[in-house]
Each structure stands twice: as structure tokens, then as C-alpha cells.
């Protein structure tokens, strides 16, 4: 992408751009501008940034230690002095644990999707651009993964690999590669037959150049939109795995795991028990709304 932006500055030399008032905008600059102007997207970005920042700086901003238990302070209600969001079933501060939990949960949302987007879009674009046997091999393998519902697949893979953060990351990445591949392939197949790809070939562009320069840019909008809509799902799946005991193990702070352990206390302290779920809800809704905004912003046509 760097290549695309490099010539912007160079062109502002006087003999070419002299007296020009309109600012040169690349596709990405225009898309970013549209995104910034969308209040919903910006709201979501703010909330998510806050969550990410809190997760990163957790040791400095949290009032308590997330792992120190205290039998006497069990299940304090929300608003207890010193425990803003109450305590859990082992007397650990909920606020602290929710902030620490964000570390794992957000990582579970972002990292598998990033990995899956990388592999999925390359596989999909290659399959879509070259077609024929290449397409058949890649897409049939993807179909095998498609045969299982994503939750079942995640459970199966995580179960096979065993519990643990790294294994959950791996299994979630594997779960999301096929759907992203499919979206990338569909978008590429559509783009490939367009005249501008032919036109690029007619001007002597090589296949890698066409794929990187023209196909990738054109399919990035549907891929990124779809991928960002999966972040919420990934968080939920990771929480689900933790809930089932296939993901993180206690005493690690993770929203899904917290939901699981607080489950037994739901009649004693319903508000406390629901809080991790609320965090999952907020994060996934924000990611989904952001993906919506992203789609609008990246749509080329006005």
C-alpha cells in the first residue's frame, strides 16, 4: 500500500500541482475520511480503544490484584466501597478481573481474525484469480471445513489440540480461514472478469502485479468488512470455549471463563454474574457496527 501513497507528496511540486486547490486523495485516504465522519463508527472506535487501552495498561489502572482471593469479600454487590463492580465468588475484584479479562478476550477476537484474514484472502484471491484446478483444490479443502458448524469445529479443534491460550488461537484461526477464503474467492471471481483486469494485462502487467495492484485493492473492501464482522463472533467463540473448559483455565481472567465460574452464583449475585457477558456483548456489538461503518466507508461508489 505504501507505493500508492508515495507519489502524492511528490506530485505537489509546483510545476505540476501549481495553483491546485483540490487535495489529492488516494482510495485509502478517501475511505478513512468517510469513516471518520460516521458518528456510529467513531463511537465504536472510541469504546473499543478504551477497552484496548484499559487491557494494555491493566496493571497500572486496576485497583486490586486479579488473582488474590478473599473469602470474606465474596460476591459483594456492585457499588461496594473499594469494589466498584463488586467481587466474584472467590472475593476477587470484578472491575480488575474484567479489565484483565479484556486482554485475553480482545486478543481472542483480533488475533485469529487477523491471521485468518491474511491466509484466507491470499488463498481466496489465488483461487479466484487462477481458477481451474487451483481453485478446485483450495475451495474443496475449504468445503471440508465448511461441513462443520463453526462452533462445533472450534470445539473439535480446541478439544483435539488441548486447552490453552495458544491452542485456542490456533483453532479459532483455522475456523475462520475457510469463510474468509470463500468471500475472497467470490469477490475475486467477480473482479477477475472485469475489463480493467484485462486492460491491465493489455498494458503488460504481470499476474502478481495485477493481483496485488488491482485485484487485492478491489476485494479488500468485502474481505475487511466480512472479517471485521467476524471479530465479535471470535470473541464469543473463545468465550464459549473457555466456558466449556476447552480454552483458558482458572484462575486466568477471561470473560468467558468468568461467565462460567460465576454461573453458580447467578441466584446470589445476578448482576455480578452477568457483567462478563455484558462486556462480551459490548465488544462484539461494537465490532459489528464498526464493520458496518467500514463497509459504507470503503464502498467506492458515492
Amino acid at each position, binding site marked *: 500500500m505504501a507505493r*500508492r501513497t*508515495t*507519489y502524492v507528496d*511528490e*506530485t505537489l*511540486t509546483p510545476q*505540476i500541482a501549481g495553483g*491546485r486547490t*483540490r487535495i*489529492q*486523495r*488516494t*482510495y485509502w485516504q478517501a475511505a478513512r475520511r468517510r469513516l471518520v465522519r460516521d458518528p456510529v463508527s467513531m463511537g465504536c472506535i472510541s469504546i473499543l480503544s478504551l477497552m484496548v487501552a484499559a487491557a494494555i495498561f491493566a496493571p497500572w489502572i486496576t485497583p486490586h490484584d486479579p488473582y488474590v482471593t478473599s473469602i470474606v469479600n465474596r460476591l459483594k454487590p456492585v457499588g461496594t466501597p473499594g469494589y466498584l463492580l463488586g467481587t466474584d465468588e472467590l472475593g476477587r475484584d470484578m472491575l480488575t478481573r474484567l479489565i484483565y479479562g479484556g486482554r485475553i478476550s480482545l486478543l481472542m477476537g483480533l488475533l485469529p481474525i487477523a491471521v485468518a484474514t491474511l491466509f484466507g484472502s491470499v488463498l481466496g484471491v489465488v483461487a479466484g484469480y487462477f481458477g*481451474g484446478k487451483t481453485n478446485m483444490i483450495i475451495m474443496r479443502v475449504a468445503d471440508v471445513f465448511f461441513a462443520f458448524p463453526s462452533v462445533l469445529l472450534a470445539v473439535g479443534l480446541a478439544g483435539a489440540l488441548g486447552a490453552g491460550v495458544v491452542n485456542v488461537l490456533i483453532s479459532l484461526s483455522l475456523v475462520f480461514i475457510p469463510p474468509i477464503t470463500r468471500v475472497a474467492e467470490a469477490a475475486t471471481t467477480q473482479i477477475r472478469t*472485469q*475489463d*480493467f483486469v*484485462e*486492460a*491491465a*494485462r*493489455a*498494458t*503488460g*502487467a*504481470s499476474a502478481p*502485479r495485477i493481483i496485488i*495492484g*488491482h485485484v487485492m*485493492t*478491489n476485494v479488500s473492501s468485502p474481505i475487511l468488512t466480512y472479517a471485521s464482522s467476524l471479530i465479535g463472533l471470535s470473541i464469543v467463540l473463545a468465550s464459549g470455549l473457555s466456558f466449556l473448559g476447552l480454552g483458558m483455565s482458572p484462575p486466568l481472567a477471561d470473560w468467558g471463563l468468568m461467565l462460567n465460574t460465576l454461573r453458580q452464583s447467578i441466584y446470589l449475585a445476578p448482576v455480578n454474574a452477568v457483567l462478563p457477558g455484558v462486556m462480551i456483548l459490548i465488544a462484539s456489538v461494537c465490532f459489528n457496527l464498526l464493520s458496518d461503518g467500514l463497509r459504507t466507508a470503503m464502498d*467506492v*461508489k*458515492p
Partner: protein
Amino acid sequence: MAESSMPSEKTNPPLLSVRGLTAAFRSEGMSLDAVNGVDFDLTLGKTLCLLGESGSGKTVTMRSLIRLLPPTARIGGRIELDGVDVQSLDDEHLRAIRGTKVSMIFQEPMTALDPVFTVGHQIAEVVVWHEGVSWSAGRKRALEMLDLVQVPSARRRLDSYSHELSGGLRQRAMIALALACRPKLLLADEPTTALDATVQIQILLLLRELQRELGMATIFVTHDLGVACEIADRVAVMYAGRFVETGEIGEVIKTPQHPYTIGLLRSTVHAGSEKGRLTPIPGAPPDLLNMPPGCAFAPRCSRAVGACSDHVPELAQVKPGREARCILVSETTPS
């Protein structure tokens, strides 16, 4: 544009020489012959118009010249462009001549320009790739090109996306893109078909002017006789993948020899035809998978005789520079 020198006509070998060109599409036991032996020469500064119905092989003929066909296509025959045997080029060298020696403009400028890049960027990109110049130099060339193709307020259009331009401007931008590296041969695939009538003539006039100015050769594919009259020096009428008649455009229009050309002219509206009824050619173009024996046009021809189906007639010379592929012509004219 000063460096695009035009060699003198006399010592000038043809820029493009095509002999026995064939193109077939192969897939799973099927073979579809789209082009069945096409020969022609083209010198710099001239325009050859390929005229024919849909499916007559005109576009495939043109695309074969730079091997811009899907991988299932098999191209045969000899194509010599500016002293280079196109058939023997490897991919790298083929890419090097595409865009620099030959370039192409398309029928639908909306889809032929990449929607996510500005017009200026796309033109600059080609120049940067081929000539290895800086982006600012490429952009400067893009501006020159847009000026050359008479885009009003070119500087502003440089930063426009294709969807922000009108159809005519888009096609002008496409032409600018095609000419950015000053090709010697321009391939135009029905570049005016998608435009409305007033814009059509502007584009045709522009192409003619550019051709004169840059001294390049043009192959122009169209199904529109009127467009052919406007732009062509020579015309080649195609039917079922073969040239059925070639000649100077004026002569072909005035004294068509092949029954297909005659039929084509009768079914076209032109000045002085208000009173008479248009006569369509009966039947449909032949199925390329199941070609009739002998002359492909015979089943639709009102003057067909039994011998028509015996073998494919040769292109017979009517007079120098004028040929027709019909046994009636070869019978009446000693060759």
C-alpha cells in the same frame, strides 16, 4: 510526441504481418475454432477495420495479436509485429510489448478502468511500470495524455475516479491510458459501441486525429458500417472466423463482392435508404462447433450453388488490394 518518428512509406516493411492466424478454444474434448486462417499486413499510420457480426471472430483475431486470450485458447499461425515474432515471445517479453508497442482500448470504459484508483494514477502506473520513471514523471505524462485526448480541465480530472466521469470522458481516459507509452499499434475493440451517438462521433474524430498525430497503426473492431466508413482505410469483413472480403473501405461499400457483404449493406440504414425496405440476411451465423462444410455462409446465401458446400473457397483477388472469398467471384475473375 516528437519522438514517434514515421519511417518513409517506401522502405517501410509492414508494422504488423499476420499469416495463417488461427485461434481455437479447447476444453474437455471440445474444440471451438474461432479464427480459421487470417492473413493481413498493416503499415504505420493505417487503420484496418474488422467488420462482422457477433461471434464472427473479429475480437478474437484482434486479441490473438497480443495473445490476450484465456489459457484455453490455442493460437496458431505467424504474427510478426515490428520485426518481432509474437508467437515465440515468452511471458516477460510479451508483457514488455503490451502497452508499449501495442495497446488496447475496450468497449465499455466503465469497467475497463479500475474503480478504486484515480484516472491519473492508472495512467501514471503504466508509465512507471514500463519506463521505470518516477511517479511524479508518470503523473506528468498522465496530465499530458489527458490533454492530448482533449479532456477538459485535465488537471482536475487527473484525480477523478472513473465513476465521476461521463461515458465520453471515460473513453477518452481509456484512450489516454492506452496511448501513455506511445504504442505503434492500437487495438480498438468497439470503442464507440457503448457511447451515445454524439459522443461516438467525437471519439471517432479524436481517434483519427490522434492516429494522424502519432502515426500509429490501428486495428478497429466494429459491427457498425457507419463507424467503419468514418475511421477505416481498409476493411476486412469477417464471417465465421475468416476474412470473406477485404479492400479499401470506399470500394467495399460501393462495390461489395461477397454476398455476405452485400447482405450486410442491404441491412444497414444509410443516407438514401429511407424509401427502400431493409433486407435482413436470413438465418443465423453458423454454430462454430458445428460448421457447415465448404463456404460457411452458403446456408444463408441467396446465391448459393451446389459447389459452395464442396470446399471452403479461397480468397480470390478481384483486383490488387481487393479480395473476396466466394466461388462466384473466383469464377468470374481470372486470378
